[in-house]
């Protein structure tokens, strides 16, 4: 069997990580992860708490610098150089509670050099929310906040989506709608990484399930059930 922590050659890798190590003090969150990820695929990253999933995603987003190892995103070694090409959704909403969804997106659109409200409205509509909603985000339900957070990540039409627990606290119907939306975006050519504890939601949608344990990728397979029985 192939070692899942070696960068096996892919046809068209969008992201390659080599021997990625991240230490927080004496705790090693990542312990030498090597992998490459193809374009136009939906990857589900699974694992127990503390397995290193979020740290891996934050390194790919350029929010955390690896202690050792290299990252290459679209051929670039510095994620910040290609930040326009990815959308990042974290576990917290990354939204201002005192502003409405539209006000939030309007502000974030400016950061990407976009001035049109139509793009913000389209992003909100895409996640099944109403752009006209005047309520501040702080008064949204947790599920609505998650969807608005996804709308923020989609706002600038990125090529790569890095999503950390997008389905947490989202009701099952809304979560399935989000999966359908993600599958549609993958079909349009986006590469999507989803860190989740609700792997079953991605059955049939994810191209590959990646299992992490104690800072290492221990398994990569297209069939989650096979992974669970292995």
């Amino acid at each position: 069997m192939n070692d899942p922590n070696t960068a096996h050659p892919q046809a068209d890798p969008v992201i390659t990580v080599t021997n990625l190590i991240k230490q927080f003090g004496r705790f090693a969150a990542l312990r030498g992860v090597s992998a490459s990820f193809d374009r136009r695929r939906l990857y589900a990253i699974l694992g127990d708490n503390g397995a290193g999933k979020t740290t891996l995603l934050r390194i790919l987003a350029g929010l955390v610098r690896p202690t050792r190892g290299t990252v290459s995103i679209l051929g670039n070694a510095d994620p910040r150089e290609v930040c326009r090409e990815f959308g990042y959704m974290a576990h917290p909403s990354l939204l201002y509670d005192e502003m409405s969804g539209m006000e939030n997106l309007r502000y974030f659109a400016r950061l990407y050099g976009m001035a049109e409200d139509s793009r913000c409205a389209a992003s909100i509509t895409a996640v099944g929310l109403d752009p006209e909603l005047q309520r501040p985000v702080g008064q949204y339900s947790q599920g609505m906040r998650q969807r608005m957070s996804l709308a923020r990540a989609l706002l600038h039409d990125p090529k790569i989506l890095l999503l950390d627990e997008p389905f947490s606290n989202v009701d099952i119907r809304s979560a399935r709608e989000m999966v359908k939306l993600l599958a549609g975006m993958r079909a349009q050519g986006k590469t999507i990484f989803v860190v989740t504890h609700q792997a079953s939601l991605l059955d049939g949608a994810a191209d590959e399930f990646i299992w992490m344990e104690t800072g290492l990728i221990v398994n990569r397979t297209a069939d989650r059930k096979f992974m669970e029985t292995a």
Partner: protein
Amino acid sequence: MSAPSGITRATLTKDIRLEWRSKDAINSMLFFALLVVVVFSFSFDPEAEESRHIAGGLVWVGFLFAAIVALNQTWARELRNQVLDAYRVSPAPANALFLAKAVGNFIFVAVLEALMTPLFIMFYRLRALGPAWQLLPVAILGTWAIVVNGTFFAAMSLRTRSREIMLPLLLFPVTLPALISMVEATNVILVGDPSTSAKFWIVLLATYDVVFTTGCLALFETVLHAE
């Protein structure tokens, strides 16, 4: 990509909107400054002549302490829901964020000063014997000196465990030369001694502002992306 000035304007507008809705910073600053005015006035019960000699120190130390509240609020807002990460993953330049925050804080502290100055005048029976118009450049340059360093050090102490304590610990020693200039200039103007001039202190303040604004702008990107 948007010009940095466009991003600065958008961030400033957003911050003013958030402050207008929450009134977190302005209410706490006003309450604190009001306490300083009233408590000091009852503690000293100064005569008009005596006031002229101590007012510079009282006013500026009061405003400095009150500004700390606003400075802490500036970044606390960005930490809630980790919104700062959304800025960090965007292509927006770090300096645009810093300038917006500094200008925002300048506006908040200036509003506080505009509201509190009449109270200071009333409680301490103040009347400038020197050229009163010179108080305007002292106020503008002095306030900028406080907020530019305060905004920078508040960002630096953002990830420390006791950031409310860290900010004054970092800020006060660095602000000392500016504070001395502000106090001396204010005293000279209020006392109206013809043998001294406030111009030296005003030039010193302006130089301080240029040096520290440049330094903060040069270093802010490192502070923003620090882990």
